[in-house]
């Protein structure tokens, strides 16, 4: 197989879809990041108590703000990659597939911007 590829193709390391292992690699990279981040998130939120005052006082501190933004970013990216594969597997109508994939990407960006903005707003005392 390797001999059938052009020298440029070998160097670029990209497959016929021009993405190569990008999707697979980013899914693993975000997975590794989420091991500590999701544990931090679960333990912190479970321990904070649910009142507005308690959650606000906890999240406005720089450490939790930074970790929450990292958690949101990697969790949403990871979720987007995972749901993308589910859609590609189960949505067989080509039009519906493209529409759902485009919606997925746009909704993910919307959620990421909204979530990160909210954390910054709390952190900067809005």
């Amino acid at each position, binding site marked *: 197989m390797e001999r059938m590829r052009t020298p440029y193709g070998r160097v670029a390391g990209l497959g016929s879809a021009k993405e190569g292992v990008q999707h697979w690699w980013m899914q693993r990279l975000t997975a590794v990041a989420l*091991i500590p981040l999701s544990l931090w998130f679960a333990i912190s939120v479970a321990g904070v*108590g649910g009142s507005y005052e308690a959650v606000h006082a906890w999240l406005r501190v720089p450490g939790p703000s930074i970790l929450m933004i990292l958690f949101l970013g990697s*969790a949403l990216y990871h979720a987007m990659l995972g*749901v993308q594969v589910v859609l590609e597997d189960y949505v067989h109508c080509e039009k519906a597939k493209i529409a759902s994939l485009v919606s997925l990407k746009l909704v993910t960006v919307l959620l990421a911007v909204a979530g990160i903005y909210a954390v910054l707003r709390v952190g900067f005392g809005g």
Partner: protein
Amino acid sequence: MTPVQRPLSPHLGIYKPQLTTVLSITHRATGIALSVGAVFLVWWLVALAYGPQSFAVPRAFFQSWIGVVFLLGWTFSLFFHLCNGIRHLFWDAGKGFDLKTTYASGWTVVAASVVLTAALWVFALGKGGF
């Protein structure tokens, strides 16, 4: 176009469920549940940024019985997906592929996710709940 008459492979429903296949589909199902949970997390954070009155809406939801069921489901989904995800990372590294190890790691994932879910809820309720 008339469909070609040819033998088809047996449908999924005919196979006996095994630990490996059940955990595989559960990994996907918990992943979808966590994606839905992420939407609720963003809702919770945006409501927090808006102020106490807005924050009361998601809080009331998470204190309702359906909210508690959702939170329990998400807690289990998080720990299952986390533990089984680590199992997947070992497979990605080419380790633990033989049948005996696959079953041992599978049952470890099941036990760990149940224990971690229970432990987190005991911890949360000890801290005064939500």
